[in-house]
């Protein structure tokens, strides 16, 4: 299964024209590190699953409508088309944009995150404000060896999704060590 997926999406994920080249300078000194490229596959996969789930409705309509009521099939095909378009958008295009903009950097005294699809957000979390860090991964993430890093302050929660699992564990250790050091300074 894994090999099949690794072989397949390579071609499936490429948009004609290559990567979107659109640099956004939110604030100078953008964070440097990027997410794991396997994120594309994981997001593609979960987008596809969503697509299948959504597809149930037009399929149901197309099979059931002619049997019980006298409803035109056009709407069913229209809905199916919309679902295909949405899935294309959600599984292929959005992940590429997301990956393109996603940056993070863990410094000694703060965490700097940039992310977004339309609205690009740049977030700054001082180390002394970090309350706890978790890593978590669902079944799809696990399949691709990925994990999400969740950083909580007393007032907010921030995520770095789709890091390799080793990197996530490493960062978790690093952040909690740094957060503890800064705690003593307060």
């Amino acid at each position, binding site marked *: 299964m894994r090999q099949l997926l690794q072989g397949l999406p390579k071609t499936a994920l490429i948009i004609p024209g290559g990567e979107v080249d659109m640099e*956004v300078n*939110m*604030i*100078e*000194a953008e964070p440097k590190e990027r997410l794991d490229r396997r994120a594309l596959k994981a997001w593609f996969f979960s987008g596809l699953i969503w697509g299948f789930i959504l597809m149930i409705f037009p399929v149901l309509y197309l099979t059931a409508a002619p049997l019980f009521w006298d409803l035109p099939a056009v709407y069913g095909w229209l809905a199916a088309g919309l679902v295909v378009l949405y899935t294309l958008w959600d599984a292929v295009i959005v992940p590429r944009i997301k990956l393109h903009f996603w940056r993070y950097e863990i*410094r000694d*005294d*703060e965490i700097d995150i940039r992310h*977004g699809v*339309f*609205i*690009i*957000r*740049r*977030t*700054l*979390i*001082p*180390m*002394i*404000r970090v309350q706890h860090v978790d890593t978590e991964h669902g079944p799809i993430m696990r399949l691709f060896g990925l994990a999400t890093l969740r950083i909580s*302050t*007393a*007032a*907010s929660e*921030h995520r770095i999704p789709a890091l390799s699992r080793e990197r996530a564990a490493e960062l978790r250790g690093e952040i909690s060590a740094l957060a503890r050091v800064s705690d003593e300074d307060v």
Partner: protein
Amino acid sequence: MIPLASLKSLLIFLAPMALVFLQNPGNGNLSRNLLILAGSAVALLVVILPLQVLSWAFYTYRYEAGYLHIKSGVIFKKERSIKRERVQTVNIRRGIFQRLLGLASLQVETAGGGSESELSLTAVTLGEAYNIKESLEGPAAETDRAPEENAEKAAGESAAEGAVREGKEAAPRAGLKALIDTALKPGEQTGAGEDNQAEAAYRITIPELFIAGATSGGFFVLFSVIGLIFSQALPFIPDAFWEHLLDRVTSTAAGTVVLVVLVLLFLSWLISSLAFMVQYANFTLQRRQDRLQVTWGLIEQKQLTLNLNRLQALVVHEGLLRQPFGRCALVAEVAGGGSREQNYVTLLFPLLRTDELTHFLARILPEYRLPDTFVPLPGRALRRYMFRAAAPLLLIIVPLQWIPYGWLSIPLLIPALFWGYSRYRAGATFLDDRQMTMKFRFVNRFRVLMLRNCIQAFQVSASPFQRWRGLRTARAWVLSSPSGKAFQVADIDIEEARHLWDWYSRQK
């Protein structure tokens, strides 16, 4: 307090019963129903009273070496120890009965304790309440003294004993006079050292209190309630009244309707103003070292002590109705322990003259500074604010053009655009070395004062349109109960966003 507490629970039980019985006199005569009611009241009292006495008898507390120990429970025993360092606030309240009996209720809140109080003593003498408060909140040096012999009964000290204890501090008072005199005067505290003297204190005056009530905007809610009651009472108003109104006062039916609505509006405004005045009467704010003490209430008196390290942000709240009078309210965002009944918002002062704010803060909270000037939004942000105000309306107005008289909706754009403009005018930010200030309006205008070390995280964001115009949205998270809160100003200049970012960043 036992009989009173029993009576209260009795009333809660009986009220629905009484309603049912007295509303339907059809199924039996009224006197028989009353008899059943009285019988069940006595029966319930026989059950409730001993239960109350028992739970009182088993509720004990003890203060010792930095810990407060509580034991409670008749059948299921519960013991709890609260560490002094963990105590966030000690609140003292006095309801009308408690004041008649010289008692007070006391709530101890700890960090992260959820919405329920860790400890709630419903009836201790006022002096004892202050003693507990002092031992839990006073300077740390005091905790080192020998364990206090405080193993006393807490809930339900008898009224007589309460009066005796009260007598030690102030002359015993009785009856209605006590209601007026035994207000929570912090000076009455027994164990209070000289370090407890207020450094600055503000007390609301009666005219200010009236303006506060009149402009609190509470009458909108009350108006709907009164309207509902009125519509229910409509059939009981005699026709003669309406005829008189129509003949003598107004000549048209429409005039009558307008008059009735106006009268109801005035009535709800009057009632809500008075309710506000009673609720916040004698509102006093005091600063003592690193603590703020807030006291308010006429019938039920409340006292709240706020340690400054729990204060996360200061909000100057200019209500729409208060702005024309140049008045505002001062609200605090507090970490942990906010009470649910106040929507987790801690009112620091209900009404202040906006032009006296700077002076007020300098005396009460010199840690915060109200900026005189702000960095306003750049001119190119105006069209975005206008668009944001008008766009939802356009979604409605445009389809309306296909129906007759749909064009009548077009003038609605004027107030919408005006609203957008005033939101644009309100938006601003300001930095000084320790504090970030955000100014913005939704309907009411807010100025949020945040110290750098109270901002939990900071974000700058931009949509493609904002990027195109060189604008950014700035957002800051502060800790506030029950969870965090984010304040934001949209469409600030990119340079100002950089400025804020660099100020917050520890990377120099």
